[in-house]
């Protein structure tokens, strides 16, 4: 998979560790929701990811969040699971560059 380079505003440097830790929590929550077939929770988590990603420079989190939200609304459990896995990988491989 291609390396994702994320450009983050230098002012946000201190917030990044916490941010990434919270995204791991989100992934875990998504996996649990998929396992129990909780479409409402999947939709909610997707919506939340959609809103939080781009502000920190993580546009891919916003994009994936939107897709996850849509899959949740459409009741497409398999899609939601696949998207969650992709997001997990993208987070794992993303390279962060701090810009002034």
């Amino acid at each position: 998979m291609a390396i994702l380079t994320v450009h983050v505003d230098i002012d946000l440097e201190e917030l990044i560790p916490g941010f990434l830790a919270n995204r791991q929590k989100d992934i875990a929550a998504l996996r649990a929701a998929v396992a129990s077939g909780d479409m409402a929770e999947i939709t909610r988590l997707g919506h939340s990811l959609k809103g939080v990603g781009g502000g920190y420079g993580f546009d891919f989190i916003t994009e994936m969040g939107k897709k996850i939200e849509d899959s949740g609304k459409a009741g497409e459990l398999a899609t939601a699971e696949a998207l969650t896995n992709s997001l997990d990988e993208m987070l794992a491989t993303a390279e962060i560059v701090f810009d002034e």
Partner: protein
Amino acid sequence: MVKEKILVVDDVEDNRNLLRVMLVKHGYSILSAENGLEAVALAEKEQPDLILLDIMMPVQDGFEACMELKGKEITKDIPVIFLSAKDDVTDKLKGLELGAADYITKPFNKAEVIARTKTQLKLYGLTRTLAQANDELREKQDKIDEDLIAAAHIQHSLIPSEVPAIAHCGFAFRFVPSDLSGGDIFNILRLDEDFVVIYIADVCGHGVPAAMVTVAVAQSLQPHGRSIVKDTLDKPPYYRISSPLDVVEKLDQQYPLDRFGRFFTIAYILLNIRTGELRYCNAGHQLPVLQRQSGEIELLEAGGPIIGMGDMVPFEEGCVTMHPGDRLYLYTDGIVEHTNPDDDYFGEERLYGVIAGQRAASLDECCTELLEEVRLFADGCRADDDITLVALEYDPEK
């Protein structure tokens, strides 16, 4: 300078952090809340200058919180900016309907956050400045109204409160002040065994300035000590009553137009109650109406221009004799210039008509009837000037 306080409300910690970092960098002080309930409590306590409010939150969402904030007196004016996803048009509309000032879309764009924040804070600041200016203006207006009421009281205190009891004379008067102090004044003074002065004056204009000149004129015409009405002498009879011509000329000297920037009119009557001889001088005032016992009406025309013209036109004195039963009516233009909904004036003809028609009635009844006729004529139109009426009936038998 005190930092402006912004309350950031979002259930997602990373959103709160992001906004905090952005805004602190621009010199704002930040408060945070995780849900609507906390937000409302914090807003009540801290009175922030702006609230950034997420919509989807547990416990209480942004819409409910906004409704509560707008419902409370101390928080209703704090501007609220909703944080909403880009594609949530319905959310945006609902937010605006609930009274939000603006919305910021997620994910947050730094420039957008700062721009909308600054705009709303500026607007809020201007609104508060305006409200303060309005309060100050209202205070000033209240003070002006107080002063007007005080001026009216002073004016009323100069006017006789009851009909004087003077031999051979029956009096009646009516005084209906307008809302704004109108500058009318009259008085009835017994100068000695034989002489009575009756005067009626109208200072132009309204309000406190007119009232002040009215006071000055009343002072000038008071009869005690050395005054222009009745002067003291060193030898018998130790006083001298000024003629109406003297009085009016003295007033004209003492009240040139450039003294107060105001002129006034006056009808000054000196009546010898023993003989019925009436001397008068009418300076620009409504012509006094002398109604004979027979009903015949004469107007007292001798006099000159308004007071203050500086002797441009000389004054003249007039003289008539009152016979038993004769009546004299003095009035100000508040009566004849009273308008009705068609913009007509009451006018002198109607006045004379009422006086003629009331010949058989008592003096007091005539006054009542005249004011009633004016009221009916006015048909709801407000008087914008004082209404003053002074009536005298000469009756040596009394």
